């Protein structure tokens, strides 16, 4: 059986857009409003952030969204409840991204089985070490037919990057620069070089680029040698400032994909 993520990349190899939104932001029930809008738009994948009190890899925008979500009373139980409700309304892959402590406190098997029950497709847990994944998580990921995505950075040695890719499924997440989320100091030349080296070493898994992607130009650059890109902080900023999500979200997605539309017209 192929997963929704695998189906996506079989169907569409390039310019995939994944949007990241913190659950419970800006309001406790906001996922129920935002995800149906994404379903009817040109977004290809949805990442839901599990809010955490101490998100070490995140810059100020996602930190702030997490704090607000926690103040709104967001919990993992509630995320699963909302995803379950949304699953009948969208066929797009849904990933959860969060920190290990939330999973440990929930209980590992309980967590992975709840992912399965609610219709979550994959996981990104940036502070989970590879060895701990293999020892305590991999069997649940397989049992519950989920995809698990590791992060690599421009500074990850190629050999290690391939090892992380071999332990990932669905896709591998390439962080655009060594920075917390939302920072924008990218060197796409280095990234393309890195990706080409990895492909020469046999990387087959689709690759998405994230961290610091803000606009159409960033998106187009990131798509140069990858299968698409992930937008988090810039999307959260948009949601925060919007008075009309139904209008603003599709407009935002269209603005990101403008250049790729031009390409397809040509």
């Amino acid at each position, binding site marked *: 059986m192929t997963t929704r993520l695998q189906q996506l990349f079989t169907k569409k190899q390039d310019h995939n857009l994944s949007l990241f939104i913190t659950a419970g932001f800006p309001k406790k029930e906001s996922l129920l409003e935002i995800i149906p809008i994404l379903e009817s738009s040109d977004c290809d994948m949805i990442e839901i952030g599990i809010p*955490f*009190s*101490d998100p*070490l*890899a*995140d*810059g100020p925008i996602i*930190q702030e969204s997490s*704090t607000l979500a*926690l103040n709104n009373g967001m*919990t*993992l139980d509630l995320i699963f409840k909302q995803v379950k409700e949304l699953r009948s309304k969208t066929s797009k892959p849904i990933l959860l991204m969060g*920190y*290990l*402590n*939330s*999973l*440990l*406190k*929930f209980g590992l098997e309980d967590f992975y089985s709840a992912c399965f029950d609610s219709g979550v497709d994959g996981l990104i847990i*940036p*502070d*989970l*070490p590879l*060895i*701990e994944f293999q020892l305590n998580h991999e069997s649940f990921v397989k049992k519950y037919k989920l995809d698990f995505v*590791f*992060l*690599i*950075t421009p*500074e*990850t*040695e190629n050999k*290690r990057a391939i090892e*992380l890719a071999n332990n990932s499924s669905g896709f591998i997440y390439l*962080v655009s620069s*060594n*920075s*917390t989320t939302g*920072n924008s100091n990218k060197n796409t030349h280095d990234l393309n070089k890195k990706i080409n080296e990895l492909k020469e070493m046999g990387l087959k898994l689709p690759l998405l680029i994230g961290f610091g992607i803000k606009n159409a130009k960033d998106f187009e650059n990131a798509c140069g040698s990858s299968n698409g890109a992930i937008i988090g902080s810039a999307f959260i900023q948009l949601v925060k400032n919007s008075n009309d999500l139904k209008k603003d979200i599709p407009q935002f997605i269209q603005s990101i994909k403008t250049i790729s539309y031009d390409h397809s017209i040509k």
Partner: protein
Amino acid sequence: MQTQTIKGYTVTEEGYYGNFGGAYIPELLYKNVQELTENYLKITEDHDFKTELNKLLHDYVGRPTPLYLAKNLSKKYKAKIYLKREDLNHTGSHKINNALGQALLAKKLGKQKIIAETGAGQHGVATATACALLGLDCTVFMGEVDILRQAPNVARMKMLGAKIIPATSGTKTLKDATNEAIRYWINNTDSYYIIGSVVGPHPYPDMVTRFQSIISKEIKKQLVSLEGKEDPDYIVACIGGGSNAAGAFYSFIGNGVTKLIGVEAEGKGITSGHTAATLKVGSTGIIHGSKTFLMQTKDGQITEPYSISAGLDYPGIGPLHAYLCETKQASYLSATDEESLTAAFELMKLEGIIPALESAHAFAVLDKLKFNSTDVIVINLSGRGDKDLDTYLKNYK
């Protein structure tokens, strides 16, 4: 698996003490942490490094620190009470042992930019001092609340040439300063992060324990000439993250003789909701890259600690202590703000010593322990109280 064993515990190659420890870090920090893991023992066990560090500890820091028989305190508590005078170190606390060691290590690794977190400011001052001495750039992250309550140390750091960055997230104390330091490190991987306690991802807990182990190594030697034996009956030390306790316990862990007593900050009381007694109210989880005990909600959100003492105001504890607690190789007690203030004023009156508020917690459990009159007790007096004068004056009756 390659492991390092000392009596009583083992640290695995991945940095585990039993179930605790490890390195739970995002890939963004992997390269830096890996570089350190591969090199810290190679460099710090090197003969030349040891000679250089020991010379600095002797000539510059003023080690060995005295082991002082506190006669008046002994009389009151009916036992032989010695104080390990870490308060007499240059910069006023044990923190310099580690800061100098790591700054020297950073230099050997070719790093020029140093970052550090600080709570009470003792580690910040020690790091700023080490950087001034060794010609390194120094940036210190400190919670906004701590900046206000530890103003003298902020001024010291600035004069020593450090840049202070206020941490404005959370309760604006030590946990948040550590978060900010880690984020800065992710964004500036050419920096070297000098963590001030036995916390954080492997190899920090082990490395900091080793740099602080000089405390117990000296106690051992000093007791031989003072008491004719190496091992005391008790070692008592305060615990936030646990670096002074780790250093004071190190040589005595698993010797079957010495009772190791750690004292956490109870704040306003265990059940008050205003406490930093992690081992009393916490549970297992991940904080700052380490699996250990921490204070958290049922959903795994890290909660805000409270203590009158900025240096103990931390919601986690080093993985070594979580392990020693679980395996019952050390006992962990706690003392309230009130009890610690009382103990500090008592030490001032009886021995003419003004302790740091942190260290005062160790003295606050003396009347909770039952000693024999021949028992030899060593209290680690980890720092001096100059920085706490405002708090003392406010509470002096």
